[in-house]
Structure formats: structure tokens, C-alpha cells
């Protein structure tokens, strides 16, 4: 394109043509072009890979830290807090009431986090506004009963080793979609190593295909 401009500027098209051909043979020029190409390529690729996710996701701190490992130790297992209701539906993140089964207005431990919990939530009778890492969008229906009760899967398969963590990582929210970063997975290319690295539809389908021989019909997972 630039050549055209060049030629038009020069007025004499013939000479411009020669000039261009001359340039082509200028190895230095070409070399510089290649260097610029490589620099730009690497720069853009890296910013797309490293900077872009930083811009795409906003980081949000949980209301206060929660020590899963400690609670699992005290309560025994995941189901103690993340329980099923009688109708087979899953409670998900426990409500304040569930916490109050053990906790009271008197702190059980000595952490600052528990002090925050007691002061701001227990005494105020307010639910803790947790950010949920594994929150699926509204269009998804997921039956925990089918997976853990009937199929006998464990929590780790999808949720990873969160039960062994002592602190909560910041919640990263996709600025465009509002999804938690854990749905797409930490890896911006969408590459996963473990079954819990990603929670996209393809991940559900992969396991379904393997376990049931079929990926399932729309309504099986959508509502």
C-alpha cells in the first residue's frame, strides 16, 4: 500500500517503480523490517497472553478469609457444611444459620477473620456475601445429588483441593461476562492439567461421554 502512496507522491511512476525494486535489494532495510516484525510479534503475543488476562479480570477480595482446612478438620467432611436438603437439592455455600450450628457470638478461635465474621455478620444477622469461585451461569442446571450420591464422585474432581486450603484466593471476575475465572480456568489458552482446572461445558461433556457414553441432551444440564 505504502508503495502506491510513494509513487503518487513522486509523480513519475516509472522511477518510483525502480526505486522500489532497489529497496527490495536493501538487505539492511529488510533486516530492520524483520526485527521490527519480531519485536512487535513477541510484544503483542506476550501482552495478549500476560497483560490481557490482567485487564480482563477484576480481582475481588472475599469479605474475610476462610480456612477450609481448619473447618474440615473440625467438622469432618465437606458435606457437614455443604449439605443436601431433604428434597435432594444442594445448599451450596452455607447460610449463616449453618455456621451458627457451631459458631456463636463468642468467637471460637482467635483470628481476626473470625472477629470480622462475628462482628459484621453474626451480630448483624447478615449473610456473608461470599464470592463463589465455581458459580455457574443462570442457564446451567447442575445436580450435585446425581454426581456425588448416585455416581459416587468426590468433590475434588470438580472443585480441586479447596478443602485443604488455609486461605481464600482473590476472586477474579471476568469484566465482560461476569463469570468467575475458574470457569474458563486459570490458563488463558484454556489448557487444563487436572479435572478441576476448568468448568466449561466441554469439561462436563468429556466426563459424561466417558462415564455414560453420551454427552447428554440440552435440558440435562440447561434450564
Amino acid at each position: 500500500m505504502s508503495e502506491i502512496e510513494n509513487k503518487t507522491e513522486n509523480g513519475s511512476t516509472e522511477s518510483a517503480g525502480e526505486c522500489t525494486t532497489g529497496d527490495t535489494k536493501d538487505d539492511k532495510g529488510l533486516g530492520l523490517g524483520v526485527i521490527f516484525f519480531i519485536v512487535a510479534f513477541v510484544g503483542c503475543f506476550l501482552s495478549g497472553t500476560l497483560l490481557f488476562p490482567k485487564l480482563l479480570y477484576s480481582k475481588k477480595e472475599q469479605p474475610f478469609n476462610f480456612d477450609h482446612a481448619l473447618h474440615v478438620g473440625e467438622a469432618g467432611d465437606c458435606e457437614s457444611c455443604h449439605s443436601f436438603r431433604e428434597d435432594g437439592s444442594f445448599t451450596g455455600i452455607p447460610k449463616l444459620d449453618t455456621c451458627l450450628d457451631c459458631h456463636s457470638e463468642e468467637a471460637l478461635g482467635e483470628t481476626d477473620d473470625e472477629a470480622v465474621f462475628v462482628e459484621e455478620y453474626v451480630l448483624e444477622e447478615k449473610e456473608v456475601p461470599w464470592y463463589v469461585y465455581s458459580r455457574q451461569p443462570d442457564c446451567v442446571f447442575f445436580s450435585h445429588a446425581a454426581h456425588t450420591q448416585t455416581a459416587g464422585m468426590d468433590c475434588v474432581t470438580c472443585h480441586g483441593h479447596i478443602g485443604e486450603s488455609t486461605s481464600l484466593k482473590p476472586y477474579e471476575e471476568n469484566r465482560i461476562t461476569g463469570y468467575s475465572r475458574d470457569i474458563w480456568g486459570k490458563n488463558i489458552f484454556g489448557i487444563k492439567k487436572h479435572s478441576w482446572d476448568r468448568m466449561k461445558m466441554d469439561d462436563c461433556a468429556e466426563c459424561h461421554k466417558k462415564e455414560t457414553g453420551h454427552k447428554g441432551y440440552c435440558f440435562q444440564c440447561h434450564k
Partner: protein
Amino acid sequence: MKQNNNKAHKFGMVIDLDKCTGCGSCMVSCMSENNVPFKEDESNKKDSITWMRVYKLTNGKSFPDTEIVYMPRPCQHCGGKGDHGHSPCVSVCPAVATDYGYDTGIVSQIYTRCFGCRYCMGACPYHARYFNWWDPKWPEGMENYLSPNVSPRMRGVVEKCSFCYHRYQAARDTAYYEGRDDIEEHEYQTACTTACPAGAIVFGDLNNPAHKVHQIVKPDPHPDPRNKHVVGKSRNPKVFRLLERLGTNPKVYYLSEREWVRKQGDNYLDGEWDKIKNHHGAASHG
């Protein structure tokens, strides 16, 4: 899983048109169960979303011999030609946003997959599919009654009756939790069925002889000898399906004592009805 096997359910419905009063309970129950929006003017019925629509049929005679009957029309959950699961709408969807559940016989869909080409609407002769021409909007505060069991649909996608699939899911959740294999007939009933004050709608598994719907319909498992595409024709002479001759194989059956009503269920050439009207599934197989 490709073909209907014996273990698979085939959920269907039979609607007694002699009992139906046209009261509209089914429509409202459906709308409130499934988060169907409403707008200021809904009198243009061609852009008004009612998964369940009640048609008013007349016998076309003049006063005082006129008769009317109401025909509720949910999605027919067609099994498609030969009941192979290629429903008119499913086979045309370019993005697999709707598919046929071989385990339930329900035509299911993903609203968030749909990109709004509306081909399925063109394919459906029952007008059972509806497009969201507008953003769904609720007056301030009214979004508080929305049910979490069904996701509200966004503008630009097609939606339709799901046979209240979320109720099936909920029933199954309970069964899973209680360690049961399967659900009972009463555990899964659609919102229109339970709402009908006249008890005109019966819902259940057409494959299960213990279910009421099977007992009323007595579906013929063999293809109709007159039309190989038609499977599951009722052996009850008072029961018919809408546009059965097209081979769509709906899972919604209608029941009426009145001949003129049954005749309006399909299209017939002159004189054809008289030959065909008493021909039912049972006749061809003894």
C-alpha cells in the same frame, strides 16, 4: 442411546377437550412456572409468548347449531418421522441449540446456545415456538417472583414449552438423594397439568403401562400401515393427535367425543374423513 429403548421414558400428555373449559389456568400456570415475561400489549397473538396456547375451535355452523371447543396446545414434543427423534424443529436447528432427548422423549433446548435464526419456528406447524422479540422486562419489584428453576430468556432467542423439565430434574434429584432408581408418576407432573381445574390434562410416561396417560392413549407401537412415518397412533378411537398425517409424531394426544373436533385435528381431502375416521391403530393389528 440413539433409539428409543424399553427403559427410556416417553413423556406425553393427553388432553380431554370435552373437559377443557378454556379457562386459561394452564396458560397462566405455565407462564408463572417458567418465568415467561409479559408486555404492555399482548393482543397481537403472533408475538405473544405463551408456551401453552389455548385455541378456540368452532364447528363452523351458524346459529343455533354452532359449537365451540377449546384446544390447549403446548409444544407437541414431536418424535419426528418414524419416531426416530428427528423432530421438525430439532433437525433444522443449525447450532444444536435444541435436541431430542431419547431418554425422555422431550424436545430440549439451550436458550443461551440459540442465536435466533428462527428456522425452528418456520419448521413447526403448531406455532409452538416463540421468539423473544423484546427484552424480557418485569415491572420494578416483580422480578421477585421469578423462579430459579428456569432461566429467564434474553431477547433474540427462541423458546418453547419444556414439559416443565425442571420438575423432572427436581424429582430425580430427590430420587438420587433417596437412592431410588426412578421416579413415580405423581412426582413429575407439568405445571399445566396440576393447575387444570377441570382435570382435563393427564401427563405421564407413554411407555409405562401403569401410567394413566398410557392407559387412555393405548399407543400403537407399530407404524401406521397407511403411513409408515406415523408411529404411536392411539388405539382409542376418541383420541387423536394434531396433524398426525405429517408424520411429526407428537406426544400430545387429544381426546374428544365429538367427531367434528377430531376431524379438525388434521387435514383431509373431500370424503377422506369418512373413510379414515374409524381407522385406528388397533384396527390394523387386531
